């Protein structure tokens, strides 16, 4: 492979391509040239006005039907560059993309090299270990049980204990969502990229979620989410003061059998069936959000407390799982105080705060999955014993099952499957929305019923069959290699599935980069003219579509993929030690998983830039 890097580039040629543009793809959709070639494009439109903007080179042209556009450039930058449509041509316009490969693809080869190097390094480090260590360290540097407790700062403590927090941020969000719903309603079947509702939710909120909110603060969105507010108001009878502890309404308990992530695994997957509609049509976004809000309110009067948030909110599943990777968590400070405290007001509530609406046990909580950061326990604890902790990434992924654990506090198959299906959903989304395949886009937006059903079928196969089965094979191999008769295969499968949490976060973050950099400029437009009525609140209504940093975009994505791999390798080696009794077994059984991770990340690299 080293030799490949030093092969001199072949003689530069003149290459000409006639690119036909039709809603919503290009033909040819994949073009390959060599570095140094003088490339000419002729853009021909087959139906309406289309454009072509070349990422990385920043040049563009456009073609009306009957009039062609032309581009001429020297392919001096190597790698894979997307070319995308630069004139709104229909509802799927933001997804109209083709790929240009300028070989040699140094970024891909360098990335592959780094991945292999990391895998090799992990192999060496693993093999060199002789005994299990206590006091695990992230990357061998940061002790995993390091933590900083934030309520030691008076300002933060007062904020967290005030009944106005997080109510004020929630009300601000309520305002924003009112505008979003209104925009979705009046937007009709118009163009999503000029609609406040579609842009704020699918470009801004989703990207912020995956890039910052979840990796850094876990369930931060749940803290400030406005959806359950009205339902909770009805349940409690009061908005800010502390009223009835038991929810008004039927206050039913959610059946124990379903107190896990399985309903959400299915529900989130079902929600993704409609992503071809609600990400592009304002009214479809209105219907989706309206349906979720309606469900939230009705669920609040039938079930107790935040049952909706735990069991029926589509995003709650991955947020809960991924929040175990985040820096922040809510835990009790001094276990002795809790041991002597009866009754536990963090669970039953008092006049200062409600009992935990998420039905957790704050005094005993050791994972983040079902804690919605609502901060009621801070207000209800008379000893000020709840703390907001900052700790290294991924610490809570290491929490093993305890004998005293209730159904929440454990590693489980439902969480494993959530991690696996998130990979699959990423894959089908990436291929359909950021890939150049026109027929996939047609399937996703249901141009024909059979195409749409095939998309759902294909999505099912990837999410529930392909990705889990491949993972199953490697974990099976790992189990077999260990020759350990006492460890159950299910435990191996579930434990190793948690390495997919940093992996999932990394690839979703990279996916979000691919959304925000090309299309972020629409946000300036919709902030001034939210409903496409001709407003100009901040003077930016005529801001043109401007992709930014598209040249370094693949580098950022590769970096994120590599970071995800680093975490996965580090955690996975440690999970192996947690799973297997002896160091020897742990070392041997890590190898198949290592190979799986390296292969998986080379595959991701190929998706993003190869």
């Amino acid at each position, binding site marked *: 492979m080293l030799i490949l890097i030093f092969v001199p580039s072949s003689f530069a040629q003149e290459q000409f391509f006639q690119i036909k543009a039709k809603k919503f793809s290009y033909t040819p959709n994949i073009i390959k040239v060599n570095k140094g070639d003088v490339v000419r494009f002729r853009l021909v439109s087959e139906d*309406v*006005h289309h454009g072509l903007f070349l990422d990385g080179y920043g040049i563009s042209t456009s073609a*009306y*039907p009957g009039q062609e556009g032309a581009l001429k450039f020297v392919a001096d930058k190597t790698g894979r560059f997307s070319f995308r449509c630069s*004139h*709104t*041509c*229909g*509802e799927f*316009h933001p997804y109209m993309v083709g790929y240009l490969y300028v070989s040699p693809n140094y970024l891909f080869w360098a990335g592959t090299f780094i991945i292999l190097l990391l895998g090799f390094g992990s192999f060496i480090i693993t093999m060199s270990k002789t005994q299990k260590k206590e006091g695990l360290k992230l990357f061998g540097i940061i002790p995993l049980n390091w933590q900083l407790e934030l309520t030691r700062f008076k300002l933060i403590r007062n904020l967290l204990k005030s*009944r*106005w927090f997080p*109510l*004020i941020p929630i*009300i*601000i969000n*309520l*305002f924003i969502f*009112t*505008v979003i719903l*209104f925009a979705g309603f009046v937007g*009709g*079947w*118009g*163009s999503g*990229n*000029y*609609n406040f509702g579609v842009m704020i939710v699918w470009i801004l909120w989703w990207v912020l979620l995956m890039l910052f909110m979840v990796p850094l603060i876990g369930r931060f969105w749940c803290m400030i989410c406005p959806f359950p*507010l009205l339902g909770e*108001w009805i349940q409690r009878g*009061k*908005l*800010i*003061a502390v009223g009835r502890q038991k929810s008004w309404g039927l206050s039913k308990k959610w059946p124990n059998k379903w107190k896990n992530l399985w309903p959400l695994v299915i529900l989130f997957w079902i929600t993704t069936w409609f992503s071809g509609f609600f990400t592009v049509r304002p009214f479809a976004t209105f219907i989706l959000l309206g349906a979720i809000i309606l469900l939230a309110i009705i669920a609040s009067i039938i079930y107790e407390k935040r049952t909706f948030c735990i069991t029926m909110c589509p995003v709650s599943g991955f947020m809960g799982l991924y929040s175990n990777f985040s820096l922040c968590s809510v835990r009790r400070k001094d276990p002795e105080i809790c041991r002597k405290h009866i009754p536990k007001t963090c669970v039953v509530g008092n006049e200062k705060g409600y009992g935990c609406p998420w039905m957790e046990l704050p005094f005993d909580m050791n994972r983040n999955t079902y804690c919605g950061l609502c901060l009621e326990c801070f207000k209800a604890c008379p000893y000020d014993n709840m703390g907001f902790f900052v700790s290294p990434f991924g610490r809570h992924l290491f929490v093993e099952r305890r004998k005293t654990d209730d159904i929440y506090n454990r590693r489980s198959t439902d969480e494993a499957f959530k991690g696996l299906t998130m990979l699959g959903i990423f894959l089908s989304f990436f291929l359909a929305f950021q890939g150049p395949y026109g027929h996939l886009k047609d399937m996703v937006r249901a141009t024909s019923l059979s195409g749409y059903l095939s998309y759902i079928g294909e999505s099912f196969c990837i999410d529930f069959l392909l990705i889990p089965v491949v993972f199953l094979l490697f974990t099976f191999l790992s189990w077999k290699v260990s020759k350990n008769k006492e460890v159950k295969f299910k435990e191996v499968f579930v434990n190793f599935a948690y390495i997919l949490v940093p992996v999932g976060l990394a690839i979703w973050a990279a996916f979000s980069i691919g959304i925000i950099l090309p299309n972020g400029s629409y946000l300036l437009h919709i902030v001034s*003219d939210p*409903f*496409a*009525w*001709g*407003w100009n609140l901040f003077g930016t209504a005529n801001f043109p579509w401007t992709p930014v940093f598209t040249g370094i975009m693949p580098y950022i994505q590769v970096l994120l993929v590599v970071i995800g791999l680093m975490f996965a390798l580090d955690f996975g080696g440690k999970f192996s030690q947690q799973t297997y009794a002896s160091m020897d077994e742990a070392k041997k059984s890590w190898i198949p998983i290592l190979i799986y991770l390296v292969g998986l990340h080379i595959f991701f690299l190929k998706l993003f830039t190869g």
Partner: protein
Amino acid sequence: MKKNELIAILLVILSTIGTVLAIFAIEKFRRNKFYTVELLARAPNNGNWYPRRFTLPYGKEAKILIRNIETVSHGFALPDFNVAVNEIKAGEVVVVKFTPDKRGIFPFMCTVWCSDEHLHMTGEITVE
């Protein structure tokens, strides 16, 4: 604390119903003050222009707000008054200003290929 509860309820109502009312109020004010007519551009199979026929007063400067509520580009041309907009992209809003100095019925039409029935995307302005 009754006071806190009232403030919280007020804030919630303001941020929801208040926002919606404020949006309607702003838009009504804007329409009345700044524009004479609002024209919706849609392809003929989605309803064509709306309103398809309208009247303008003779001699008074007319400001027409054209909103493209579709996902394809449209155009606007009023040849009798030499007024046109090259391309109104999807979601775009443009304002066309002119002073009608002739009386009669004048056609306006779309100038950008938008659909199979593009040539039928026409309307009439009556000036009196």
